[in-house]
C-alpha cells in the first residue's frame, strides 16, 4: 500500500519571520502515541515530546532521532566555556533566517532575545535579514553563520580572523561552527516534512 501525504487542517500560514510561538503541521503521518514502543519513546529523550507531531514523526527512525537530539542539546545547552548561549542561538537564528525556516527562526530568535536581552537587535535580524547591522561582534557571528550555510561554503580564514578580533576564542569559534552547522540539519527537516502555522488567539 502506498502511503499518502496529509492535508493539514485549516490554519493561518505565517508570512513573516516572528518571535511568536508557532505550531508545526506534518505533511506525512507521525507515529500514533499508542503504537510507540519503548525504543521509540526513549528516542524522544524528553518524554514531553510525545505531544509533538514533529518528534513523533522523526521517531519512525528512533536511533537517528536520539543521536540528533543529544547532539543538539550538547551544542546549545552545554554551559562549559565556548560561545555564550545567546550567541549560539544567534547563529541558529541567522542560519534559519537565511535558509528560510520561519518555524526554526521563531524558536531560536526567542532564545537569542531572552539570553541576550537584545530584543530589538534580534527582531531586526528577523525583519531585515542577515544583512542587518547589529554590532561588530554580532555582525561577525551572523556573517560566519551565513558563510557556513551558503553553497558553495564560503567560510574561510578571514571569517576566523574577524571572529577573533571581536573576542571569540577557538572554543567559541568551534561552538559557532557547531551551532550554524546544526541548523543546516534542523532547518531541512522542519522545512521539508511539514509547515508552520500561526497559533490561534
Amino acid at each position, binding site marked *: 500500500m502506498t*502511503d499518502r501525504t496529509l492535508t493539514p487542517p485549516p490554519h493561518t500560514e505565517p508570512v513573516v519571520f516572528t518571535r511568536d510561538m508557532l505550531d508545526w503541521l506534518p505533511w506525512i503521518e507521525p507515529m500514533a502515541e499508542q503504537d510507540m514502543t519503548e525504543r521509540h519513546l526513549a528516542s524522544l529523550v524528553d518524554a514531553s515530546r510525545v505531544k509533538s507531531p514533529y518528534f513523533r514523526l522523526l521517531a519512525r527512525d528512533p536511533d537517528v532521532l536520539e543521536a540528533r537530539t543529544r*547532539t543538539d542539546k550538547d551544542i546549545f545547552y552545554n554551559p562549559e566555556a565556548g560561545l555564550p548561549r545567546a550567541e549560539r542561538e544567534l547563529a541558529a537564528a541567522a542560519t534559519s533566517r537565511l535558509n528560510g525556516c520561519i518555524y526554526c527562526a521563531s524558536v531560536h530568535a526567542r532564545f537569542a532575545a531572552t539570553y541576550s536581552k537584545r530584543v530589538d537587535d534580534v527582531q531586526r535580524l528577523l525583519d531585515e535579514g542577515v544583512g542587518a547591522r547589529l554590532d561588530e561582534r554580532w555582525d561577525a557571528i551572523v556573517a560566519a553563520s551565513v558563510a557556513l550555510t551558503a553553497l558553495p561554503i564560503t567560510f574561510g580564514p578571514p571569517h576566523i580572523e574577524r571572529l577573533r578580533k571581536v573576542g571569540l576564542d577557538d572554543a567559541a569559534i*568551534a561552538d559557532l561552527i557547531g551551532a550554524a552547522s546544526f541548523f543546516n540539519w534542523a532547518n531541512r527537516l522542519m522545512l521539508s516534512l511539514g509547515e508552520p502555522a500561526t497559533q490561534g488567539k
Partner: protein
Amino acid sequence: MSDVIDTLVGIAPGSKLDAIRAQRSEARKHAQASYTSLFEPREVAGVAAYERHAIAAFVAGLHGEPKTDAFYAAKLPAGLRATVAAEVAAAKSTGPYGRFPKGPLSAEDAPGPTWKVSDTGRTALGARLPAAFEHTHMLVFHPRDAAAPALQALLDAGWSTTDIVTISQLVSFLSYQIRVVSGLSTLASSL
C-alpha cells in the same frame, strides 16, 4: 571506534582541536552515533545500504567539500560512483535559493530550478533512487521550496513514510557533518 569528523578534519589525539571537541563530548559522540545509525544501522530496514551510500555520495558531491566528497564516493562500486558523479556535475548549483510564503517576504524570493535526474541516470539508478536524488537536490540547495507534493513524489516512487524520514535525516545530517568538517578544517589551519 574512529570518529568520522576527526578523521576527515585530521584531528590528532592530544591536539588543540581534540581538546576543544572534548569540551563537547556528547555532541562529538552523538554526531558519530548519527553517522553510525544512518550508515551502519542495527537493522537495514526500508532504505538499503547501497541506497544510503548513493544518496550520501550525491549530497557530498553537491557540497563539493573535497574530504567528505572523497570519503562518501569511495563507498560506492565504480559503476554507481560514475553515475552519481555525472548527476552531481549536472545538478551542482549555488544556494540557498527559493521562494518565501506570499507576502512581505516575496521581495526576497530567489526563484530557481527544480532539478531532474538525466535519462541515463534514471536508467542506471533504478526505480526509487531518481526520486530520492531529486528530493535531495531540493533539500541541499533550496529547502524553503519544500511542499507536500515533493513528499508525494517520494511515496509514489515506492518509498514509505518511514523511508522518507530516514532519507530526510540522512541528507540533513550530511548538511551538518560537511559544514562541521569544512569549518573545523578552516579553524585547524589557523590555530
